[in-house]
């Protein structure tokens, strides 16, 4: 009775493994080293700030970031004054005022990042029918995280022989299906970094991926720090409990 069942299961397992290998080509993302990975990981402030610059000057032309506020930028090393300045560089619609009218005013640190389009229809109309997704959670909303965003931004190129790319679409070797509506957003020297870092496509993709990781997981550093303390505490507590347990049980064994 037992043997045939085992044989069946073994056969089924081998079959499952083989079909997994044969399934539609898996996209292998580039594996970059990210400073925020690992239990002691922290954000590379300089890279995140540069990434913010890339987002502000390039990505934000089409992509919103509704969950992040200007005030949050203090966490990545901007001073209060710098944050006020950054916020004040955009005009936001507020109101209604006492006369019942909406009005424009400079942004405040308490405002969320200003979205490029007033609504989804406007965003689609300006982008050939495609909707540029909100980037606040992009790092957590895609398999691969920062490797994925980095891959997409550096994966543009000529389609290989045999691959067809529809009208208005672009070839990207790391995008699922390889056809992406977003035209290549980065080009060498597209931004000028204040710290003198050379703004290559690779560098900008790396920096903006760092920034997107921070926008998705702004509490990561606190989480890692509290985590290490918690686990150390628990290890000591558990060791003590083990000692007490041994002592109490000594007579029973």
């Amino acid at each position, binding site marked *: 009775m037992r043997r045939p069942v085992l044989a069946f*299961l073994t056969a089924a397992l081998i079959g499952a493994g083989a079909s997994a290998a044969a399934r539609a080509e898996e996209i292998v993302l580039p594996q970059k080293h990210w400073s925020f990975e690992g239990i002691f990981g922290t954000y590379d402030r300089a890279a995140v700030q540069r990434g913010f610059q890339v987002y502000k000057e390039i990505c934000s032309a089409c992509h919103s970031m509704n969950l992040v506020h200007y005030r949050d930028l203090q966490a990545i090393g901007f001073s209060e004054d710098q944050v006020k300045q950054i916020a004040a560089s955009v005009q936001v619609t507020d109101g209604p005022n006492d006369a019942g009218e909406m009005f424009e005013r400079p942004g405040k640190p308490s405002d969320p990042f200003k979205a490029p389009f007033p609504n989804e229809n406007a965003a689609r109309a300006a982008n050939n029918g495609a909707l540029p997704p909100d980037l606040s959670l992009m790092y957590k909303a895609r398999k691969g995280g920062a490797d994925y965003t980095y891959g997409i931004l550096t994966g543009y190129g000529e389609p290989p022989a045999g691959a067809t790319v529809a009208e208005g679409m672009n070839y990207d070797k790391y995008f699922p299906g390889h056809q992406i509506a977003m035209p290549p957003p980065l080009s060498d020297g597209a931004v000028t970094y204040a710290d003198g870092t050379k703004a290559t496509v690779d560098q900008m993709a790396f920096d903006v991926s760092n920034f997107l990781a921070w926008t998705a997981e702004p509490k990561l550093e606190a989480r890692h720090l509290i985590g290490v303390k918690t686990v150390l505490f628990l290890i000591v507590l558990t060791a003590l409990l083990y000692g007490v347990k041994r002592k109490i049980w000594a007579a029973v064994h």
Partner: protein
Amino acid sequence: MTATTPPGFKNPIIRWIDHRLPMFTYMHHELHEYPTPKNLNYMWNFGSLAGFMLVAMIATGIILAMHYTPNAGLAFDSVEHIMRDVNYGWMLRYIHMNGATMFFIVVYIHIFRGLYYGSYKAPRELLWLLGVLIYLLMMATAFMGYVLPWGQMSFWGATVITNLFSAIPWVGEHIVTWLWGGFAVDNPTLNRFFSLHYLLPFIIVGVVILHIIALHRFGSNNPLGIDVKGKQDSIPFHPYYTVKDGFGLGVFLIFYACIVFFAPNLFGEPDNYIPANPLATPAEIVPEWYFLPYYAILRSIPNKLAGVIAMFGAIVLLALVPWLDRSPVKSARFRPVYRYFFWLLLGDCFLLGYCGAHPPEGWYVVAARLGALYYYLHFLVIFPLLALFERPLPLPRSISEPVLKGGGVAATAAARALPMEKA
């Protein structure tokens, strides 16, 4: 369960209260002197761990509910508000979100421990049934909780699972509309799921209390699966098992903390960080890992109604185990054949889970069908047949003197006599 001897509390306030409301006597009786077999191994830690998880989930959940907004237009952002703006909100949410995973890990080990050591056999059938009921309530609670963040997987998971009821002939469609509160998963669905997600844990608390009352009627089973014969076989619950459970809790919390603080999204789907969109179906709709074996059984049958019946039947079989397993020997230690089938069932559940996580195509379908077939065979054929054909090993005479020379002979004869009488 009435207190036999007053424990004689020294504190006059406690004595005053206890005289009028004997809750201290009750606690002393059930938690302190409650006699427990002295040979319980670490597999017996998971009941108290499950109790801990229930309390942890309710505590974090109540605080999360203070900041969460159950509205289809606001739910997603309110969860992100908790993650970003509420003090330690990220911690509460990650503890709660991963708490579901931890709760199910603990409960699955608890269930399989019961299966291995025959904890469901007379006189503990009702104890087992109450456990299955808790498990069902947990599944309903977890499912509705997963819907609350209103991400893509929340929305599409809710759509797929509620649609299962449409397989019921004649009234299925009406039931689904009634469940949704409309003609699609939408704001009314989210509202009622939130309400029920808050209610069900307290019903679980009630059933857990019944579970413990039923447990304390005959006490814990033990790794030998034989009855406690006298005082020499048992020890008071406190301090022996309180400290042992405390140590186990420490080990468990280290694991739990590592997930919460260092890999909080390990068990989650990235798609659930995309706001729900009724117009865009995710490439693959996958339930949470703890439902995957059932999902595999559901999809292994091409007919929708039959699939749904097979899936719910898998849980019903679990409830029927005390009557399907007729062997008089409880512990698999003394059941040389059952022991192997136990591991086979465990492996089968992993296989089903693996298939459930992958699209139903090619070999996954074949493997899932074989897995589902074995699951049913295990409960409906193997359990009853083993009772007839298995020759159990000699049972020790008592917990205190396991496998002494000569002591086993009489017990062996007794253990063998029963199956032969039946045959």
